[in-house]
């Protein structure tokens, strides 16, 4: 039974079929990017377990790669593999296993976001590039703000969101990946509060560049038994904050990119950019920052191709914003990736394996026949 299972799992046919399907995924996923953009294509074809073409469910990237990992691992259990002549092959495949394991860890455990810091200011928050959250902030106290935050996976129509710190309940009505505001002609419906009194929040087609999308959310507030109860809408990046007052508590409500708070802060002292003369092409950017931990600052220079690595996070110089009065704001990419080292280890192992195999087998292939 065990031998049978290993034989099936390690079969080269399984490998070939998975490879073929992976190639199909890669091709379809690449072409799709033209229409739906890189992020949406990643989510649909590569970071998924299944996706649908019409009513038909098809395996996504994660399933295919998992199958290939099983295939590779079970190959290791084959008795007739372990021969001296095949030592190179074994090592290469071990390297391959490392690569896939690393990919799995990255897929599950990593996060990527941005830190936007103005010259002279400090920040300890990373804003995720894509994932949003609904933040209800109690600003009543003069010393602190109390955040209650609900993550994007909870934004399903009909979901009830509750928390002990809140004096009211929230029911999600709709979440849109990309939305816009349109002024209402005439008067709004009864029960619509805040921004929805003057504007309709409507869904529009997603932009292929995910950074241009402005998510929107419509939800119902209930349980205050006052005229605060009603339907509210929020759009990402709205300039005027939404507030409600319940039981002498003032709450600010915001749809924001998921925030991660760091145990240290980054303060931007100076941002420098050098362009290729007379062009819009950047030659190099750099940020002179202070890394502040436990109130102790230490100076660091973050440049393109020279990031800062600290506490499992890596901070890269991504881009910048320039305001007309000359003040510059640096935009850093902050990445947290557990599987980071695996590709390095894997490539070393695989190159050793291939070299071993080539040294053993190559001369025979190139002998000249005269």
């Amino acid at each position: 039974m065990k031998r049978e299972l290993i034989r099936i799992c390690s079969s080269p046919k399984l490998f070939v079929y998975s490879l073929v399907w992976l190639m199909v995924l890669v091709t379809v996923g690449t072409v799709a990017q033209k229409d739906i953009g890189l992020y949406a294509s990643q989510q649909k074809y590569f970071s998924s377990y299944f996706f649908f073409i019409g009513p038909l469910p098809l395996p996504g990237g994660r399933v295919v790669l998992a199958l290939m990992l099983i295939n590779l691992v079970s190959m290791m259990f084959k008795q007739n593999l372990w021969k001296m002549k095949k030592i190179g092959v074994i090592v290469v495949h071990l390297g391959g296993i490392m690569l896939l394991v690393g990919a799995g860890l990255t897929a599950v455990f990593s996060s990527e976001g941005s830190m936007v810091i103005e010259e002279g200011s400090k920040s300890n928050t990373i804003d995720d590039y894509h994932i949003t959250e609904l933040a209800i902030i109690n600003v009543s106290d003069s010393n602190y703000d109390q955040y209650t935050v609900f993550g994007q996976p909870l934004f399903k129509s009909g979901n009830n969101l509750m928390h002990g710190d809140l004096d009211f309940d929230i029911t999600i009505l709709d979440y849109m990946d990309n939305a816009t505001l349109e002024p209402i002609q005439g008067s709004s419906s009864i029960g619509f509060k805040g921004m929805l009194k003057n504007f309709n929040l409507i869904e529009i087609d997603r932009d292929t560049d995910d950074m241009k999308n402005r998510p929107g959310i419509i939800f119902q507030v209930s349980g205050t038994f006052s005229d605060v109860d009603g339907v509210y809408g929020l759009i990402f990046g709205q300039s005027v904050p939404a507030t409600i007052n319940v039981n002498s508590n003032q709450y600010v409500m915001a749809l924001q990119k998921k925030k991660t708070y760091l145990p240290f802060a980054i303060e931007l002292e100076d941002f420098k950019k050098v362009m290729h003369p007379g062009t819009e092409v950047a030659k190099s950017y750099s940020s002179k920052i202070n890394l502040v931990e436990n109130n102790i600052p230490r100076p660091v220079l973050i440049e393109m191709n020279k990031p800062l690595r600290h506490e499992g996070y890596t901070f890269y110089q991504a881009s910048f914003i320039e305001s007309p009065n000359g003040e510059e704001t640096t935009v850093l990419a902050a990445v947290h990736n557990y599987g980071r080292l695996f590709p390095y280890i894997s490539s070393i192992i695989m190159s050793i394996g291939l070299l071993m195999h080539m040294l053993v087998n190559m001369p025979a292939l190139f002998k000249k026949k005269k």
Partner: protein
Amino acid sequence: MKIFQTISFVLFFLLLSGCDKNRHIQSYRTPKKDFGLQLEAPQPSSKTRSSDVTNLTWELPDSWIPSTGHSMRLASFDIPFSDGVGDLSIVSLGGASGGLLANVNRWRGQVNLSPISESEILNVSTVGESKMGPFRIFKMINDVDTSNAIIAAVLPTGQKTFFIKLTTTKKGVIELQSVFEKFCASIGNSS
């Protein structure tokens, strides 16, 4: 062996899918942040509109070609430059016309820039002198999307305020800035 394999399978799968809903709810405290809750009430726009149209004169650069624009415009020009064609409009509005701040922020909104405050207005503009008095020039450039940029001059003259606005790209603003300033400086009154 088979059982071990099955269990590791299941665990692996669970690890990947995750079924703890409370994972997505968080609660924490931060130091006070300014949410901008004390906002000015928006200025009511002036409803008065003067009926007489002042006869403006100016020195028109050779390459600027009159075009047809919105009926509210006093004048409209297509302005060619190396990588595009700018759209210049001259509009006059009575009185304070909603206030300098409101107009500047409206233009900033048109190029997707965030609004600025009263005190910053002085820092981001330059002053020029025309035949009808001084004017303020604002450059509004969005570095993220350089296809939208505006350079505009606000020329207040007692009765009316003239808005000379050139809509183009970032490159256009840079190339046309000095000829735009010269044009504004040449604006005079024939009547």
